[in-house]
Protein backbone atom coordinates (compact mmCIF):
# COMPACT_ATOMS: atom_id res chain seq x y z
CA UNK A 1 0.00 0.00 0.00
CA UNK A 2 2.67 2.47 1.07
CA UNK A 3 4.94 1.36 -1.75
CA UNK A 4 2.15 2.07 -4.21
CA UNK A 5 1.70 5.61 -2.83
CA UNK A 6 5.42 6.31 -2.92
CA UNK A 7 5.58 5.22 -6.54
CA UNK A 8 2.68 7.49 -7.41
CA UNK A 9 4.34 10.40 -5.62
CA UNK A 10 7.63 9.76 -7.36
CA UNK A 11 5.97 9.62 -10.75
CA UNK A 12 4.04 12.80 -9.92
CA UNK A 13 7.23 14.57 -8.94
CA UNK A 14 8.92 13.53 -12.18
CA UNK A 15 6.00 14.68 -14.31
CA UNK A 16 6.01 17.99 -12.42
CA UNK A 17 9.56 18.61 -13.62
CA UNK A 18 8.20 19.16 -17.11
CA UNK A 19 6.37 22.18 -15.73
CA UNK A 20 9.27 24.10 -14.30
CA UNK A 21 7.93 27.42 -15.57
CA UNK A 22 9.46 30.22 -17.57
CA UNK A 23 12.77 31.42 -16.22
CA UNK A 24 13.02 35.23 -16.14
CA UNK A 25 15.81 36.29 -18.45
CA UNK A 26 19.28 37.16 -17.32
CA UNK A 27 21.19 39.96 -19.00
CA UNK A 28 24.62 41.54 -18.92
CA UNK A 29 25.28 44.66 -16.88
CA UNK A 30 24.62 47.85 -18.81
CA UNK A 31 25.47 51.48 -18.11
CA UNK A 32 21.94 51.90 -16.71
CA UNK A 33 22.89 49.80 -13.72
CA UNK A 34 22.65 51.49 -10.32
CA UNK A 35 26.19 50.70 -9.18
CA UNK A 36 27.70 52.04 -12.39
CA UNK A 37 25.48 55.06 -12.97
CA UNK A 38 25.61 56.26 -9.35
CA UNK A 39 29.27 55.31 -8.72
CA UNK A 40 28.26 53.34 -5.65
CA UNK A 41 31.22 52.64 -3.36
CA UNK A 42 32.57 49.10 -3.14
CA UNK A 43 31.29 48.30 0.35
CA UNK A 44 27.71 49.14 -0.47
CA UNK A 45 27.95 47.60 -3.93
CA UNK A 46 29.03 44.29 -2.43
CA UNK A 47 26.10 44.28 -0.02
CA UNK A 48 23.62 45.11 -2.74
CA UNK A 49 24.98 42.43 -5.02
CA UNK A 50 24.96 39.79 -2.30
CA UNK A 51 21.59 40.52 -0.81
CA UNK A 52 19.50 42.24 -3.45
CA UNK A 53 20.63 41.77 -7.02
CA UNK A 54 19.25 38.25 -7.52
CA UNK A 55 15.68 39.52 -7.44
CA UNK A 56 16.16 43.22 -8.10
CA UNK A 57 18.32 43.15 -11.21
CA UNK A 58 18.84 41.34 -14.49
CA UNK A 59 21.94 39.59 -13.15
CA UNK A 60 20.09 36.79 -11.39
CA UNK A 61 22.12 33.75 -10.44
CA UNK A 62 19.86 30.72 -10.43
CA UNK A 63 20.50 28.33 -7.51
CA UNK A 64 20.25 24.52 -7.77
CA UNK A 65 16.80 24.38 -6.21
CA UNK A 66 15.39 26.66 -8.87
CA UNK A 67 15.80 23.76 -11.27
CA UNK A 68 13.34 21.71 -9.25
CA UNK A 69 9.62 22.18 -9.58
CA UNK A 70 7.69 23.46 -7.57
CA UNK A 71 10.50 25.45 -5.90
CA UNK A 72 11.10 26.99 -9.32
CA UNK A 73 7.65 28.57 -9.29
CA UNK A 74 8.39 30.48 -6.10
CA UNK A 75 11.82 31.56 -7.23
CA UNK A 76 10.55 32.84 -10.58
CA UNK A 77 7.68 34.66 -8.89
CA UNK A 78 10.08 36.38 -6.50
CA UNK A 79 12.27 37.48 -9.35
CA UNK A 80 9.42 38.77 -11.49
CA UNK A 81 7.82 40.63 -8.59
CA UNK A 82 11.18 41.93 -7.39
CA UNK A 83 12.12 43.32 -10.78
CA UNK A 84 8.67 44.81 -11.22
CA UNK A 85 8.92 46.62 -7.94
CA UNK A 86 12.55 47.71 -8.33
CA UNK A 87 15.10 46.83 -10.98
CA UNK A 88 18.60 48.14 -10.34
CA UNK A 89 19.53 47.32 -13.92
CA UNK A 90 17.12 50.00 -15.08
CA UNK A 91 18.13 52.61 -12.52
CA UNK A 92 19.41 55.24 -14.91
CA UNK A 93 16.10 55.10 -16.76
CA UNK A 94 14.05 55.86 -13.67
CA UNK A 95 12.69 59.36 -13.40
CA UNK A 96 14.10 61.43 -10.58
CA UNK A 97 10.96 61.11 -8.49
CA UNK A 98 10.92 57.34 -8.95
CA UNK A 99 14.53 57.13 -7.75
CA UNK A 100 13.76 59.19 -4.68
CA UNK A 101 10.76 57.07 -3.86
CA UNK A 102 12.60 53.80 -4.33
CA UNK A 103 15.52 54.96 -2.18
CA UNK A 104 13.08 55.88 0.54
CA UNK A 105 11.41 52.49 0.28
CA UNK A 106 14.79 50.78 0.45
CA UNK A 107 15.52 52.43 3.78
CA UNK A 108 12.11 51.38 5.08
CA UNK A 109 12.21 47.78 3.89
CA UNK A 110 15.76 47.20 5.08
CA UNK A 111 15.13 48.90 8.42
CA UNK A 112 11.97 46.86 9.03
CA UNK A 113 13.78 43.69 7.92
CA UNK A 114 11.13 42.95 5.29
CA UNK A 115 13.98 42.77 2.83
CA UNK A 116 15.77 40.60 1.90
CA UNK A 117 12.95 38.07 2.17
CA UNK A 118 13.33 35.54 4.98
CA UNK A 119 12.99 32.69 2.51
CA UNK A 120 15.84 34.11 0.46
CA UNK A 121 18.02 34.56 3.52
CA UNK A 122 17.41 30.96 4.57
CA UNK A 123 19.05 29.78 1.36
CA UNK A 124 21.63 32.55 0.99
CA UNK A 125 23.80 33.09 4.03
CA UNK A 126 25.48 36.12 2.49
CA UNK A 127 22.11 37.87 2.44
CA UNK A 128 21.75 37.59 6.19
CA UNK A 129 22.61 41.23 6.76
CA UNK A 130 23.86 42.30 10.15
CA UNK A 131 22.49 45.41 11.80
CA UNK A 132 25.66 47.26 10.83
CA UNK A 133 25.32 46.17 7.22
CA UNK A 134 21.70 47.25 7.18
CA UNK A 135 22.70 50.64 8.53
CA UNK A 136 25.35 50.97 5.85
CA UNK A 137 22.71 50.44 3.18
CA UNK A 138 20.24 52.76 4.87
CA UNK A 139 22.77 55.58 5.24
CA UNK A 140 23.82 55.18 1.64
CA UNK A 141 20.21 55.26 0.43
CA UNK A 142 19.43 58.37 2.48
CA UNK A 143 22.47 60.22 1.18
CA UNK A 144 21.78 59.27 -2.39
CA UNK A 145 18.16 60.34 -1.96
CA UNK A 146 19.24 63.79 -0.76
CA UNK A 147 21.77 64.11 -3.54
CA UNK A 148 19.24 63.06 -6.17
CA UNK A 149 16.73 65.59 -4.88
CA UNK A 150 19.23 68.40 -5.41
CA UNK A 151 19.94 67.38 -8.96
CA UNK A 152 18.43 68.92 -12.10
Amino acid at each position, binding site marked *: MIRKMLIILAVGAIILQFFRGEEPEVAEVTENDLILSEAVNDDVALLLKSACYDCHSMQTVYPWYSYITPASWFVFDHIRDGRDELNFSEWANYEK*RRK*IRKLKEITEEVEEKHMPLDSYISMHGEANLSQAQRETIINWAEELGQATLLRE
Partner: protein
Amino acid sequence: MKTSITTILLMGIVIIGYSQKPPTQVLLVPAADSSQLVSFSLDVMNIIDAKCIGCHAPNARNEKARKALQWEKLQMMEKMDAYAQLDEISEVLEEGSMPPKRMVERYPNMKLSEKEIAVLKDWVSNTLTKIEGE
Protein backbone atom coordinates in the same frame (compact mmCIF):
# COMPACT_ATOMS: atom_id res chain seq x y z
CA MET B 1 -25.11 72.54 -9.32
CA LYS B 2 -25.25 69.01 -10.68
CA THR B 3 -21.61 68.44 -9.79
CA SER B 4 -22.01 69.40 -6.16
CA ILE B 5 -25.04 67.11 -5.68
CA THR B 6 -23.06 64.22 -7.13
CA THR B 7 -20.13 65.08 -4.93
CA ILE B 8 -22.33 65.12 -1.85
CA LEU B 9 -23.95 61.81 -2.79
CA LEU B 10 -20.58 60.19 -3.41
CA MET B 11 -19.18 61.51 -0.17
CA GLY B 12 -22.25 60.12 1.52
CA ILE B 13 -21.68 56.68 0.11
CA VAL B 14 -18.04 56.68 1.09
CA ILE B 15 -18.70 57.99 4.56
CA ILE B 16 -21.51 55.53 5.26
CA GLY B 17 -19.58 52.68 3.78
CA TYR B 18 -16.28 53.33 5.45
CA SER B 19 -16.71 55.10 8.70
CA GLN B 20 -19.14 55.19 11.57
CA LYS B 21 -17.29 58.20 12.88
CA PRO B 22 -17.96 61.76 11.76
CA PRO B 23 -16.24 62.64 8.48
CA THR B 24 -12.63 63.74 8.61
CA GLN B 25 -12.15 67.45 8.88
CA VAL B 26 -9.47 67.65 6.29
CA LEU B 27 -7.90 71.00 5.81
CA LEU B 28 -6.89 71.01 2.19
CA VAL B 29 -5.14 74.24 1.53
CA PRO B 30 -6.30 76.10 -1.57
CA ALA B 31 -3.74 76.96 -4.22
CA ALA B 32 -3.94 80.61 -3.25
CA ASP B 33 -1.83 79.89 -0.19
CA SER B 34 1.47 79.52 -1.98
CA SER B 35 3.50 79.27 1.21
CA GLN B 36 2.51 75.62 1.26
CA LEU B 37 4.62 73.20 -0.70
CA VAL B 38 1.55 71.12 -1.46
CA SER B 39 -1.78 72.81 -2.11
CA PHE B 40 -4.98 72.01 -3.97
CA SER B 41 -7.20 73.80 -6.43
CA LEU B 42 -10.95 73.44 -6.08
CA ASP B 43 -11.05 70.97 -8.99
CA VAL B 44 -8.53 68.71 -7.34
CA MET B 45 -10.14 69.06 -3.92
CA ASN B 46 -13.48 67.95 -5.30
CA ILE B 47 -12.01 64.81 -6.82
CA ILE B 48 -10.07 63.92 -3.70
CA ASP B 49 -13.11 64.53 -1.50
CA ALA B 50 -15.31 62.39 -3.69
CA LYS B 51 -13.03 59.48 -4.45
CA CYS B 52 -10.02 59.32 -2.20
CA ILE B 53 -10.41 60.80 1.22
CA GLY B 54 -12.76 58.09 2.47
CA CYS B 55 -9.88 55.66 2.84
CA HIS B 56 -6.91 57.98 2.84
CA ALA B 57 -7.62 59.88 6.02
CA PRO B 58 -6.42 59.47 9.63
CA ASN B 59 -9.61 57.87 10.96
CA ALA B 60 -10.35 55.66 7.99
CA ARG B 61 -10.94 51.98 8.70
CA ASN B 62 -8.53 50.52 6.17
CA GLU B 63 -5.09 50.34 7.78
CA LYS B 64 -3.25 49.69 4.54
CA ALA B 65 -4.76 52.79 2.98
CA ARG B 66 -3.96 54.88 6.04
CA LYS B 67 -0.34 53.79 5.92
CA ALA B 68 0.02 54.28 2.19
CA LEU B 69 -1.31 57.84 1.96
CA GLN B 70 -3.07 60.46 4.01
CA TRP B 71 -3.97 63.56 2.08
CA GLU B 72 -3.80 65.91 5.00
CA LYS B 73 -0.35 64.64 5.94
CA LEU B 74 0.87 65.20 2.41
CA GLN B 75 0.63 68.91 3.01
CA MET B 76 2.97 68.74 5.98
CA MET B 77 5.58 66.43 4.51
CA GLU B 78 9.20 67.28 3.99
CA LYS B 79 10.36 67.76 0.45
CA MET B 80 11.78 64.30 -0.06
CA ASP B 81 8.83 62.47 1.45
CA ALA B 82 6.40 64.55 -0.57
CA TYR B 83 8.38 63.77 -3.69
CA ALA B 84 8.23 60.04 -2.99
CA GLN B 85 4.52 60.18 -2.19
CA LEU B 86 3.74 62.10 -5.36
CA ASP B 87 5.61 59.54 -7.38
CA GLU B 88 3.46 56.81 -5.91
CA ILE B 89 0.31 58.80 -6.64
CA SER B 90 1.39 59.28 -10.22
CA GLU B 91 2.06 55.57 -10.55
CA VAL B 92 -1.40 54.55 -9.39
CA LEU B 93 -2.93 57.11 -11.72
CA GLU B 94 -0.88 55.68 -14.56
CA GLU B 95 -1.89 52.11 -13.72
CA GLY B 96 -5.51 52.98 -12.99
CA SER B 97 -5.29 51.00 -9.77
CA MET B 98 -7.09 53.52 -7.55
CA PRO B 99 -9.79 53.50 -6.25
CA PRO B 100 -9.26 49.75 -5.71
CA LYS B 101 -11.04 47.29 -8.04
CA ARG B 102 -13.33 45.90 -5.37
CA MET B 103 -14.46 49.37 -4.43
CA VAL B 104 -15.18 50.31 -8.02
CA GLU B 105 -17.06 47.07 -8.62
CA ARG B 106 -19.28 47.80 -5.67
CA TYR B 107 -19.67 51.50 -6.38
CA PRO B 108 -19.12 52.12 -10.10
CA ASN B 109 -19.48 55.85 -9.52
CA MET B 110 -16.23 55.79 -7.61
CA LYS B 111 -14.19 55.05 -10.71
CA LEU B 112 -11.98 57.96 -11.72
CA SER B 113 -13.02 59.39 -15.06
CA GLU B 114 -10.48 60.18 -17.81
CA LYS B 115 -10.92 63.87 -17.06
CA GLU B 116 -10.39 63.42 -13.33
CA ILE B 117 -7.25 61.39 -13.94
CA ALA B 118 -5.97 64.15 -16.22
CA VAL B 119 -6.69 66.81 -13.59
CA LEU B 120 -4.89 64.82 -10.91
CA LYS B 121 -1.91 64.07 -13.15
CA ASP B 122 -1.60 67.77 -13.93
CA TRP B 123 -1.73 68.58 -10.26
CA VAL B 124 0.99 66.02 -9.52
CA SER B 125 3.37 67.42 -12.12
CA ASN B 126 2.66 71.03 -11.13
CA THR B 127 3.29 70.22 -7.50
CA LEU B 128 6.53 68.43 -8.35
CA THR B 129 7.68 71.45 -10.33
CA LYS B 130 6.80 73.67 -7.40
CA ILE B 131 8.77 71.49 -5.00
CA GLU B 132 11.75 71.50 -7.32
CA GLY B 133 11.70 75.25 -7.42
CA GLU B 134 11.87 75.55 -3.65
